């Protein structure tokens, strides 16, 4: 009798946990619960920004600490005719548009980008899925490019538009000015001492080293300074953020 009761209770404990797990899937359907849960991102960002140095540098590594092989992820090749034509011309006709809230909109070639002061860094790339790879990146600081374009005081975010398409529209993502002006935030045209290959985002990708891999936009075509993310995509600042509920601030 006693044992039967205990067995029932044991099942109850396991069942209770299963119920809690199942309940999570039901309560998140409530918009209020969703709002609270999604506030976690803002709390983490707020705490990290408030408690620590906003210009703290991501760890950098020695050449012998690099991954022997750096896997690709996301789009491996944009595959459009326009991209194929640029690639066939070794990106000589490619231009990076810098526009939006800037005094002097720019159209920069790879050699224009090479004329800026360069920064090279060996950093760790952390995919949201959990893996990490260490590689070397080189290019101008985004801060220098934004200054050259005469960034307006009204600008608060920088939006990146890419050559690859997701869901029929170009991939896009955005960062705020704390990360845009961070000393390690660069527009990388070289990886591991070679021109960026197609799998890793040729001819240019963003490196924003204190955030996860999906923020490292590849195949950059356009950089737009904006006051608000409301007019970008569905308003949450990026393709994954708009469509798959990923955090916009991917520092966690």
């Amino acid at each position, binding site marked *: 009798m006693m044992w039967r009761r*205990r067995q029932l*209770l*044991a099942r109850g*404990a396991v069942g209770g*946990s*299963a119920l*809690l*797990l*199942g309940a*999570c*899937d039901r309560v*998140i359907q409530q918009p209020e619960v969703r709002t*609270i*849960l*999604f*506030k*976690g*991102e803002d*709390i*983490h960002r707020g705490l*990290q920004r408030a*408690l*620590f*140095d906003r210009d*703290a*540098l*991501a*760890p950098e*590594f020695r050449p012998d*600490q*690099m*991954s*022997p*092989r*750096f*896997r690709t992820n996301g789009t491996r090749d944009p595959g459009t005719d326009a991209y194929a034509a640029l690639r066939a011309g070794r990106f000589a006709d490619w231009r990076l548009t810098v526009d939006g809230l800037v005094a002097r909109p720019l159209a920069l070639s790879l050699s224009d980008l090479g004329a800026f002061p360069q920064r090279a860094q060996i950093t*760790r790339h*952390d*995919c*949201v*899925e*959990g*893996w*990490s*790879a*260490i590689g070397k990146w080189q290019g101008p600081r985004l801060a220098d490019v934004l200054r050259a374009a005469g960034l307006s005081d009204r600008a608060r975010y920088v939006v990146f538009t890419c050559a690859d398409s997701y869901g029929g529209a170009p991939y896009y993502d955005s960062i705020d000015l704390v990360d845009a002006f961070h000393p390690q935030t660069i527009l990388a045209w070289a990886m591991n001492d070679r021109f960026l290959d197609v799998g890793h985002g040729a001819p240019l990708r963003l490196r924003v*080293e*204190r*955030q*996860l891999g999906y923020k490292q936009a590849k195949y950059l075509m356009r950089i737009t300074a904006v006051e608000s993310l409301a007019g970008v995509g569905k308003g949450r600042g990026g393709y*994954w953020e708009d469509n*798959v*509920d*990923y*955090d916009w601030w*991917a*520092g*966690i």
Partner: protein
Amino acid sequence: MGATAIRRHRLATRLWHWLNAVAVIVLIGSGLGISNAHPRLYWGRYGANFDHAWAQLPRFPAWLTIPANYNLAISRRWHLFFALVLAFSLLGYMVVSLINRHFQRDLRLRRRDLAPAHIAADVRAHLDLRFHDPEAPGEYNVLQKLSYVAVIFVLLPLVILTGLALSPGMDAAWPWLLDLFGGRQSARSLHFLAMAGLALFTVVHLTLVILAGVGNELRSMITGWWRVPE
């Protein structure tokens, strides 16, 4: 009934216990969902598909994960929110328990507690399903103390710090985290192992609660009142 009842758990302990219980369950469920995104564990600074994995984890089934159907973004939302609950409730509990002397009074391991003969006697008592010293029924037995100390001062801090080491933002703010654990992928492996330790503790803990008498144990953790077994 009719037996003596004692006030076993203070309000702070009870409050933290339940906050922590909910946080741990949600964190394990959502963490297993995150694990399904890349079920390989590595040692060192880097680790991806071409690198050597020391463990290839199973795909955790829908009844164990939050959400049930694979959704990395939503698993992360649950995980990162409840990570805050876990960390700050532990911090609060630790501060209060130092002030109200719960740690010093109830969890301190004395030399005589750790004498091999005493531990062996306590193991035998557990096997006989006797969990309380009739001389001092309100005190934790030594196996209880050891497991609570391991959870509160080792496993929970370990799971929190290794979790912080997974944040690229925290790695810039606190680079010593990476030195402490030997790189981000080592921290990720240790994070998983600490979770496994907490899961094992939870199973043993629930089993012992059932064996010791669910009603009495549950009441003591809700109201604070615990009936002394005869």
